[in-house]
């Protein structure tokens, strides 16, 4: 059984009598250890899909099974537990707590996991080492650059050692160079065997992931439109970033 299974998942918003199908009958399997990118035009439903996969949101129809648990049957408490232990989420806009410093932000998921103070500190520092942020432990998020904030957010996502890491346009607000650093980080995580799912508009990222899923109008496209994702241009430029077969 796959780590993540979506069966006929729809998400419908009602806006003043109008029905918006953000997701429309999506079925999808993602296995353990996969490195997946989700691409597609703006407004196609990528974030919606991510939120449902990441147990932040619930589908209007269909079933989601995460690591053997049927999400729509789980209690809010169980969902919180899954978000805490099995899932790491990296947002486009970092979403760090402004009043906490870097270590405290990273410690936050462990607080809800009930990890003791000393252990928490140790693991937070270790996670920050991985993202090369050890030198800024006491800084507030507002004192960091976007890329630095995103690295802290990644450390936070990793700190409870989750099976799956979701990232919704993690490089969307970063310059190319910083984006590359972040991407390198995700590649490393993937090589370590973690399941990684990234929503991106960035063809360079899509190019490195072995599997790409394209969403169009809330549906999964049969075949990835390389031109739309900009992959064709990239492939023409250099073959070095192409995924290993």
């Amino acid at each position, binding site marked *: 059984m796959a780590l993540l299974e979506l069966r006929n998942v729809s998400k419908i918003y009602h806006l003043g009598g109008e029905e918006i199908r953000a997701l429309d009958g999506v079925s999808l399997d993602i296995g353990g250890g996969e490195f997946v990118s989700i691409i597609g035009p703006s407004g196609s439903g990528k974030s919606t899909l991510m*939120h449902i996969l990441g147990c*932040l*949101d619930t589908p209007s129809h269909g079933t989601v099974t995460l690591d053997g648990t049927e999400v729509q049957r789980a209690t*809010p*408490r169980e969902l*919180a*537990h899954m*978000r*805490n*232990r099995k899932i790491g*989420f990296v*947002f486009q806009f970092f*979403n*760090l*707590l*402004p*009043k906490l410093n870097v270590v405290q932000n990273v410690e*936050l*998921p462990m*607080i*809800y*996991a*009930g*990890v*003791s*103070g000393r252990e928490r500190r140790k693991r937070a520092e270790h996670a920050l080492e991985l993202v090369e942020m050890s030198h800024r432990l006491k800084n507030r998020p507002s004192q960091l650059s976007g890329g630095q904030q995103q690295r802290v957010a990644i450390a*936070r996502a990793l700190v*409870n050692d989750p099976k799956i890491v979701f990232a919704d346009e993690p490089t969307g607000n970063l310059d190319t160079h910083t984006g590359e650093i972040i991407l390198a980080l995700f590649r490393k995580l993937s090589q370590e065997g973690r399941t990684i799912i990234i929503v991106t508009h960035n063809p360079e990222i899509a190019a490195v992931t072995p599997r790409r899923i394209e969403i169009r109008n809330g549906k999964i496209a049969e075949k990835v439109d390389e031109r739309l994702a900009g992959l064709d241009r990239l492939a023409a430029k250099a073959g070095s970033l192409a995924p290993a077969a």
Partner: protein
Amino acid sequence: MIFVNSIVVGLKEIWAHKSRSFLTMLGIILGVTSLVGMSAIIKGMENGMKEAMIAMGGVDKVLVRTQPVPAWQDHLADSAPGRTLTDVMALQNSAPLIRLVSPEMALDDVMISRGEKRTEPSECVGAWPAVLEMNLHTLAHGRFFNEIDEAEARPVCVIGTGIRDELFGRPDEIGKEIIPLGETIMIENQPFVIVGMFQEYMGEQEAKERIRQKELRDKQEQAGPKRSRGWGRRGGWAFWRKNMTVYIPLNTAWVRFRSGGTAGSGIPDPRLTDMDIKVADFSRLEEALQQARNVLLLTHQGIEDFSFETQENQIENINKQIKNARLSGGIIAGISLLVGGIGIMNIMLASINERVREIGICKAVGATSANIFIQILIESAVIALIGGLMGLVVSELFVDLLGALTPSANSPVITRNAELVAVAFSVAVGVLAGILPAIKAASFSPIEALRYE
């Protein structure tokens, strides 16, 4: 774990909005101050009244009062005997449930003098030694009257320290304590020898105050020239009165002042001005009084020109006053705390509205609704707790101020209990005020909260 962290986060939140938090706390501060202050005032009142009660002879003292003869005995009014030594003897002999009888013969408007100095005592009374136990006097110096003094109607007296202060000088003014045993003073221009002096009576508060002042003075003495200063505020009325007492033997009062008749009437007046009794067993008060009534009816030829006044009525009165004061104090404090609670609820609602996104983030990384609920509740309780503690400090100042304005016998006393209750109440108010905001915060769905602008 989460608990400790919640407190830390709560403190941060409060620190981040210092002035807002402080304004919110004001309600609680006021509430705690009024609660602690009120209870301190009441406690002071209570202490004052209880001490006064003891100063006047304790709860087991029963006064035998004269009263106009009842209507059905109107025709006997002229033969009403009043309280006399006959009654005293009869009670002593025939009323075993009465342990102590103390007859008193008071002299009215007495002037006491020594050389140029003169003073009016609170009472100048001819009494038996029984008066010591009756009025809870403690003889500090010399002796009380003996049988020879009584039999020979000797011109001797025992005085309170107030009289000494007036006629010989106060220890703190003249720098040493005079014990005027053997000295002669004039009572209504008749020479009396002082044979004894009572201890100085004062309330607990005043006693403490004095020790403090004395220490202060000792320090100042080392530091600089001596400054003449009073003993501070004089004690309560009851203690002042007790210190201004002059006793002479009952027979002396009779022979020297009363046998010639009062107000120059020429008719000897054997009536006592007071007759107090104490019962052997306070739990059998009713029986004892009935016994005394029977005996007295006999000596009064059945004329009921007397009644008993127990201190119970007075105690009841005191308790009622205290209860009323407690109630009104409690209501004021309750209202302030309620207002404080509403303030906290308001601020917590505002605070979670500002922090919807933060709450969303917490939920996204694994906080359960219960975590968020507890977090908000703790924050609210912490605000209230800090407010409560500040309230304790303010009430301390408030009570000090009040203490400086009121006589020391009634000066307010802060009790540990009142403080505990006040803090517990404010925390409870904080928790209650936090419930609604906490429910609201806990019920955010993570994705809605994250998207909130």
